[in-house]
């Protein structure tokens, strides 16, 4: 993994909009406002304002994509620091990189754990259901606020990739290129099933209290189980074999229901860590948004209209949560619309996690792709 230099010490910024009565109209028909988005930026926006790249994060991600977070405690590197920074795939000496926390999240943007101004208490499950299209609509307000007319690129892995696709669907004239990674046009029944098991784990925990647990403590057991299931789906059979095999934590079997195997210890550790940093209701809302997402009927709503956005679609061979056939479905749509596009299925054993780990191959593809897009004249 690339380790040379990072984007420096980064301060989280906030942008609030959709103040009543100008609330954001949601796909569900409901409205939400005011909305705050937490976001970070890396690099400088140039005078022409044509070097801006928007990064979308995955289910449990946040706005802290790169560099070191400013503030108290341990300085923490961003979740995609291997890809964003000086000389990296998203080279911050050339490009202005933006990452915001999605609405419905719990990392500074408005979500179910935010205070509902009407009641003075957290929204909990009074928070309206949101979709990927709503997330992107909120991001569009931020991009407007930053004075950017056209993004050089929208990119992300997993749910971030859905946001990239949705940007092209919602605002095709504002996106010069898109890089959907390890993602799909829609969730398959298998993907919905995994999400539903996670949601049921949360909601079956008595501590969930119909979502009204704020001030009383999270449904930790349920959320941890949800996260453990998630982690299994992010790895591959081979990567689990390499990482844990059947290694034991102690010398022998305990012959009790203790964590005998290393893989058990890992999942519990991941589950416990997750409940300290993530809101259970946000988990419900965001997984629902993933399940509702469906652009299989067409990335653009106007049939026959060509897609002007340039695409780089990336999948990973061992990713069984978002298998490469789903990436090929995206490619199929791009072929039909005569889009200028590239597709690569990277050989990796990491499973779905590969988009966070395979920095070298992704860097090679992305840096050259961006260079080409940046160089090409507008409206080619």
């Amino acid at each position, binding site marked *: 993994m690339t380790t040379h230099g990072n984007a420096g010490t980064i301060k989280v910024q906030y942008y609030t909009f959709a103040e009543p009565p100008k609330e954001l109209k949601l796909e569900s028909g409901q409205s939400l406002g005011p909305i705050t988005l937490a976001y970070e930026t890396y690099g400088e926006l140039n005078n022409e304002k044509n070097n801006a790249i928007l990064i979308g994060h995955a289910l449990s991600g946040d706005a802290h994509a790169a560099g070191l977070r400013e503030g108290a405690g341990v300085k923490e590197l961003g979740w995609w620091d291997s890809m964003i920074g000086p000389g990296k795939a998203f080279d911050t000496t050339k490009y202005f990189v933006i990452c915001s926390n999605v609405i419905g999240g719990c990392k500074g943007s408005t979500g179910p754990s935010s205070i509902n101004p009407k009641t003075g208490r957290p929204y909990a499950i009074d928070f309206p259901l949101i979709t990927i299209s709503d997330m992107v609509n909120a991001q569009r307000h931020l991009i407007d606020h930053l004075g950017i007319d056209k993004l050089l690129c929208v990119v992300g892995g997993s749910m971030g990739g859905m946001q990239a696709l949705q940007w092209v669907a919602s605002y095709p004239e504002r996106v010069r290129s898109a890089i959907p990674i390890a993602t799909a046009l829609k969730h398959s029944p298998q993907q919905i099933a995994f999400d539903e098991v996670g949601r049921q784990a949360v909601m079956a925990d008595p501590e969930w209290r119909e979502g009204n647990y704020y001030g009383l403590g999270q449904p930790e057991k349920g959320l941890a189980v949800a996260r453990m299931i998630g982690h299994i789906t992010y790895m591959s059979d081979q990567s689990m074999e390499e990482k844990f095999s059947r290694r034991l934590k102690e010398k022998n079997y305990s012959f009790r229901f203790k964590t005998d195997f290393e893989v058990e210890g890992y999942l519990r550790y991941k589950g416990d860590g997750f409940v300290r940093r993530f809101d259970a209701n946000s988990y419900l809302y965001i997984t629902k948004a993933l399940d509702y997402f469906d652009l299989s009927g067409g990335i653009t709503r106007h049939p026959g209209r060509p897609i002007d956005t340039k695409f780089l679609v990336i999948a990973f061979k061992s990713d069984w949560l978002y298998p490469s056939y789903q990436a090929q479905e995206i490619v199929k749509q791009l*072929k039909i619309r*005569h889009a200028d*596009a590239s*597709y690569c299925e990277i050989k990796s054993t990491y499973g779905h996690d590969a988009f966070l780990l395979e920095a070298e191959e992704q860097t090679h*593809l992305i840096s*050259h*792709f961006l260079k*080409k897009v940046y160089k090409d004249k507008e409206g080619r």
Partner: protein
Amino acid sequence: MTTEAIRPDHQVIYGIVEPGSRVLDLGCGEGDLLSLLTSGKGVKAQGVELSEPAIYKCVEKGLSVFHGDIDSGLKDYPDKSFDYVILNQSMQEVKKVDFVIDEALRVGGRVIVGFPNFAYWRARLRLFFKGKTPVTYSLPYRWYNTPNLHFLSISDFKEFCADKGITIESEHFLGRNRGQQFLPNLFALNAVFLITAGNNRKER
């Protein structure tokens, strides 16, 4: 652009393709031909390639390329999506040649096919006198490591086109470094054909 370093088959194809056209190169390798056509003829280029390292080289060259095999690479395209579909040194590697040619003719107005000539005289000699599978300049592999699934001669291909009602618009025969027009089925190492669906096309 120096013509010295450019492969003879690439030179021939370069001569065929009209400026500004839409080109699909099936089995584009590291993208040398598409780069040439993009820089020299301003074509809108799309490649299809199976090898992952070759994909990286294509993207490095600024080309658009899809990772996948030729057999399944065509079906998603609407009719006449391209002006030219190129199958240069890749036709002999696909599983179902007749299907791929049909699809290429559907997707592109004109199809450029380049392949090594199995009836080259040295190949004939090797088979006739030594009783061994031919290994030539254009067929450099051994029987156990060749990517080629089909072995054909120039005459075979012409017969194929006649049987299928495919029109041969032009034909080009190549020796090692230049054209080879004299008794091509005997003396040419490689052949490049420009074909179209033709009017008397037989039903599939």
